[in-house]
């Protein structure tokens, strides 16, 4: 009997996985699963400490496509080669696969994946007598938000991530800046934050969110905004595609029948990298239960698992964004009106595309270097402070110098 310890995040899809994992244990009576379910920040900190000190407490880690290549490069993760034929690795969407591969080898299996898009409330726009353009720009988003804001009834035109964190507000701000033509670093790793592009982007962000956003925006991350939107408090929300499944699920959303969607808004610079995020199951190289861990990881990311979730919770609730077969499934298409939209967003997502100026790093809503966790979070704090009255210029100057310091400390350019 082997015991597999799984560290995972307390997101809804993972919670479902935990619940359904008893099936796996029935099928594999000699494997016992032990769950460590933690909030995202705590999880990341725990898992990173553990793997970096090679303490080997976990057999399966739930990590993002930000960590996978970095950790794989350090040799901390076990590669997934020789996957069973039934697993059909080819079915995994290629962009997702690329994101979690290093030197051609897969180092994690994707549990779900997402890009970003714009959600809006069809009823509100209708009442205001406007409609959402096919490919909205940030300027248009702002105009619409203004028209549908009704603070007296606690309806706020625009919800965006405001909670500081590299995976929270910076997840939105980084693509926003890209769309305004900015970037984090130039090809010599010089910090490019205190620039007109950033200034315009942040000015838009802070101005729009302060005027039309809900109160307490600095506490709102993805989950908080989801709750707000599902509760009917948001007019427009730009965020991850994964929310679609939840927003269209009447069990979890009060506005399931009034959700409209559009692509991520654009700015003056079209093109550039696009948002791609996946939560993946990876196995640390130090794990002593490689085989059992592998068995579970493949099970939880398999087509069968998706079928199982569909059976249990309905198709709209299956983990999205990973397998073409899901999107090919007519039942899924029927349950999820956004399916093809999302599929296109993900398959077209290109985190490695260039910003307006060339850049030495990859990632659309993050910078694919280990230091980004710290830098992103620190800059995120500064950006958040613009929502509470700090001037944009001042904030960016602070962010610029802090980032320069951190990069110098970390020894860039390498």
């Amino acid at each position: 009997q082997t015991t597999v310890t799984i560290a995972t995040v307390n997101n809804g899809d993972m919670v479902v996985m935990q619940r359904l994992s008893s099936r796996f244990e029935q099928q594999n009576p000699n494997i016992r699963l032990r769950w460590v379910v933690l909030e995202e920040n705590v999880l990341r900190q725990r898992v990173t400490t553990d793997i970096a000190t090679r303490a080997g407490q976990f057999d399966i880690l739930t990590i993002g496509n930000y960590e996978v290549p970095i950790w794989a490069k350090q040799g901390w993760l076990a590669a997934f080669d020789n996957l069973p034929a039934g697993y059909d690795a080819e079915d995994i969407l290629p962009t997702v696969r690329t994101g979690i591969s290093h030197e051609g080898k897969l180092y994690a299996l994707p549990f779900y994946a997402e890009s970003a898009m714009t959600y809006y409330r069809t009823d509100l726009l209708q009442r205001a007598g406007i409609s959402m353009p096919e490919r909205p720009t940030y300027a248009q988003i702002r105009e619409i938000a203004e028209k549908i804001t009704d603070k007296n009834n606690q309806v706020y035109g625009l919800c965006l991530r405001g909670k500081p964190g590299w995976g929270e507000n910076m997840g939105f701000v980084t693509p926003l800046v890209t769309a305004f033509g900015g970037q984090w670093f130039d090809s010599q790793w010089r910090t490019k934050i205190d620039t007109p592009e950033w200034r315009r982007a942040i000015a838009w962000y802070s101005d729009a969110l302060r005027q039309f956003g809900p109160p307490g925006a600095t506490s709102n991350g993805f989950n908080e905004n989801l709750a707000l939107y599902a509760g009917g408090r948001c007019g427009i929300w730009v965020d991850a595609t994964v929310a679609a499944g939840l927003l269209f699920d009447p069990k979890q959303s009060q506005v399931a029948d009034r959700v409209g969607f559009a692509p991520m808004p654009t700015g003056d610079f079209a093109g550039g990298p696009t948002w791609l995020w996946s939560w993946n199951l990876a196995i640390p190289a130090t794990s002593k239960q490689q085989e059992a861990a592998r068995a579970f990881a493949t099970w939880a990311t398999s087509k069968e698992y998706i079928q199982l979730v569909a059976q249990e919770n309905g198709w709209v609730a299956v983990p999205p964004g990973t397998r073409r077969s899901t999107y090919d499934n007519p039942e899924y298409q029927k349950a999820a009106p956004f399916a093809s939209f999302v599929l296109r967003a993900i398959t077209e997502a290109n985190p490695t595309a260039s910003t307006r100026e060339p850049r030495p790093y990859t990632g659309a809503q993050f910078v694919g270097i280990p230091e980004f966790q710290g830098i992103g979070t620190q800059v995120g704090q500064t950006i958040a402070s613009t929502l509470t009255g700090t001037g944009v210029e001042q904030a960016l100057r602070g962010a610029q110098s802090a980032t320069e310091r951190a990069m110098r400390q970390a020894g860039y350019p390498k």
Partner: protein
Amino acid sequence: MSTTVAPPLGALPGQADAPERRRPVAFFLLSPSVAVLLLWMAVPLALTLWFSFQRYNLLDPTVGGFAGLDNYEFLVTDPDFWAALANTLVLVGSVLAITVVGGTLLAVLFDREFPGRNIARLLAVAPFFVMPTVAALVWKNLMMHPSYGVLGSVARGLGLEPVDWFADYPMASVIVIVAWQWLPFALLILLTAIQSLDSEQKEAARMDGAGPVAQFFFITLPHLGRAISVVVMIETIFLLTVFAEIFVTTSGGPGNATTNLAFLIYARALLQFDVGGGSAGGVVAIVLANVVAFFLVRTIARRLEV
């Protein structure tokens, strides 16, 4: 670990000037605690010191080697560092002020006889038993949340715009939460102390013409001196290292508005995984702790007649 308060080398038998037969026993009894504490402090401290002079990032094992004073330089030139120091002092100072003043007033109140006093007292001390994480979560989500929180509803009920606490008054919000948890502790201790006040002293003051207010300031308050010292000392110990409340609510922000030293070190060590920088922060915190220990504990210890 203390650099200013000399660690004891132990009272070795024969070394003290009155060699008593029982000394060895005393030494034998004390040494385990001193030894484990020394170990507990010394081993990590040695490692921390060592790391603080290393380039050591958990996420990047490729860089390494001796860093000299780089980590320290990096720390003290960080504007956040000084802000964190200031925030630490503000947090500790404000919570101490609130809990001591509030605790004293509440102690006086709960010293009076009124119907259901015992139950009311139980309710009042309850927050002390709540774990900091839960306290922070409850305040953040159920109390101070601008949309769903009770405070927001109250504000709306009064026709006011709900306050976005963690954005507009981040430090004050953290202070409220921490003070909420420690106020009952102060109340518990001070109430105990107030009840030990000799009733003849109060009567003497009455004979001397002191009204209730004068009695409070001239008799009760000085009597509480010792207990207040205890409260200040114990609370300082815990407040210097407040972490969970900040982590759960503001994560040190917005900007660096609520980053205290503990959180700054956390950010270095566990967000950036910069063990070298974090360790340098740890060493600074150790020095700071000793400065505080020196000034605060010494003055207090005198009053406690240690």
